[in-house]
């Protein structure tokens, strides 16, 4: 079912790429990326290395494949991890072309170190949901249910964006809860729910959606107070700036946006 969906989508993208080369590079990017936009589909080649937040794993992998199909001769490789860890790697000289972070604070550590090329662009927003095992056995409906005795909760550590957002949301709701664990990134928190080791975790809506065969995502009102902006930047020492710029434009194109929206991200 899922694989079929991807295949159809790939086929559709390929068709678009074949038929509409001339139509490519519409005016969907922001001003700064405009020159590179026209290069999309022609003249772009080589490999692009993207360091992206763990929560972008599914959607960026898909967009990367679409981009490779639309631009033969390109190869997009990803390094997915907690944003701050990626920021450290970049600031220590890792050879990356693009950095996509799950929070502006993390992005700032890279731009402050002078490693960004231009100003980062916010390309999506993400919101927290409560992930519970399929069928919601503990009957969780809101944040306050997480403080009930016998409900084990996993949060992200405050050092990573999903943890910072969780803290903001809990503070906004004045809910005090003691998690059993503070996980190192959002995927780790989610996997604790998948394995049934905890009864709930605060994760991004996109992560809950990606794992919808194992978990249910429960929306809660206070999450609107803790929305994460995802900024994106081409790096100053990017080995392949042209292709990197083209990929950034592609992410912000209608095709890229469609994948991101389908994954549960919100438009900025």
């Amino acid at each position, binding site marked *: 079912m899922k694989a079929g969906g991807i295949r159809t989508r790939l086929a559709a993208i390929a068709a678009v790429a074949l038929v509409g080369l001339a139509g490519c590079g519409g005016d969907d990017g922001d001003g700064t990326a405009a020159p590179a936009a026209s290069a999309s589909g022609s003249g772009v080649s080589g490999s692009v290395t993207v360091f992206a937040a763990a929560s972008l794993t599914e959607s960026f992998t898909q967009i990367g494949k679409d981009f490779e199909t639309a631009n033969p001769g390109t190869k997009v490789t990803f390094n997915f991890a*907690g944003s*701050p*860890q990626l920021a*450290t790697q970049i*600031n*220590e000289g890792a050879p990356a072309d693009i950095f996509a972070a799950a929070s502006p604070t993390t992005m700032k550590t890279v731009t402050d170190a002078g490693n960004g090329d231009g100003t980062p662009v916010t390309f999506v927003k993400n919101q927290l949901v409560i992930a519970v095992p399929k069928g919601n056995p503990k009957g969780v409906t809101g944040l306050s249910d997480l403080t009930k005795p016998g409900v*084990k909760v*996993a949060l992200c*550590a405050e*050092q*990573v964006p999903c943890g910072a957002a969780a803290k903001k949301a809990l503070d906004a709701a004045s809910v005090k809860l003691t*998690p*059993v*664990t*503070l*996980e*190192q990134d959002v995927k*780790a928190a989610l996997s*604790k729910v998948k*394995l*049934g*080791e905890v009864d709930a975790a605060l994760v991004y809506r996109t992560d809950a959606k990606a794992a919808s065969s194992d978990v249910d995502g429960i929306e809660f009102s206070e999450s609107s107070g803790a929305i994460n902006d995802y900024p994106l930047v081409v790096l100053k020492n990017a080995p392949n700036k042209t292709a990197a710029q083209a990929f950034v434009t592609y992410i912000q194109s209608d095709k890229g946006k469609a994948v991101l929206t389908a994954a549960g991200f919100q438009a900025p």
Partner: protein
Amino acid sequence: MTVATPRRVRGRIPLPLIVPAGLSLLFLVLPLAGLLIRAPWTTLPQRLTEPGVLTALRLSLQTATLATLLCVVLGVPLAWLLARIEFPGRRVVRALVTVPLVLPPVVGGVALLLVFGRRGILGSWLDSTFGITLPFTTTGVVLAEAFVAMPFLVIAVEGALRGADTRYEEAAATLGAGRWTTFTHVTLPLVAPGVAAGAVLCWARALGEFGATITFAGNFPGRTQTMPLAVYLALETDLQAAIVLSLILLAVSVTILASLRDKWIASP
């Protein structure tokens, strides 16, 4: 550390030995030098007194020591079995002992969850019968560390047993000692240095354990957050803090290991 090296063969040290020896030493020591060079020496004292640091350090030392004890109690008999008893499938068992060495620790952590987790094969029984849950507890940390560190002890002790002169054991047997008496009164004293060396290796490995611990026991300050976990999370936001934590862990462990080594291994 001055260990007297007896010179059995005189003459110049051959170049094919001294050059790679020097290179390997350099290779092992340079990363440490990197840490020392980048360490924020001026802020070191105040970092040391940050409350979370000592808690994590204490937990690390406690859990590594308990894990080592567990490994000695369970691992020495296993090593004896492998070295002294002929049984079908001994080769397979010996290979199985090394599995935790080859398994990526994170996978080891997942495997432990699948067995000892709330829905695990043994874990669900422990939970329903005794109300015992192991994940996210300090006991869980000890188990994860013991799982990863056990092979170091078993391999070292088995090696010592195989190298030991079996004539003493035979003599004890001819004098009427049973297998258990022979083991406690002859074998064990004979291989004590080997057990000590294995225990030191085992302790060191347990102290540095990260992957299995964070996966199986999670990360919660004071309960399951050992030094390696604290280092990893510090790395998310503050490289310098991570370096300081690493140096503390290194200093403490090297001091302990060096003093034990002089006492146990170099004495006879």
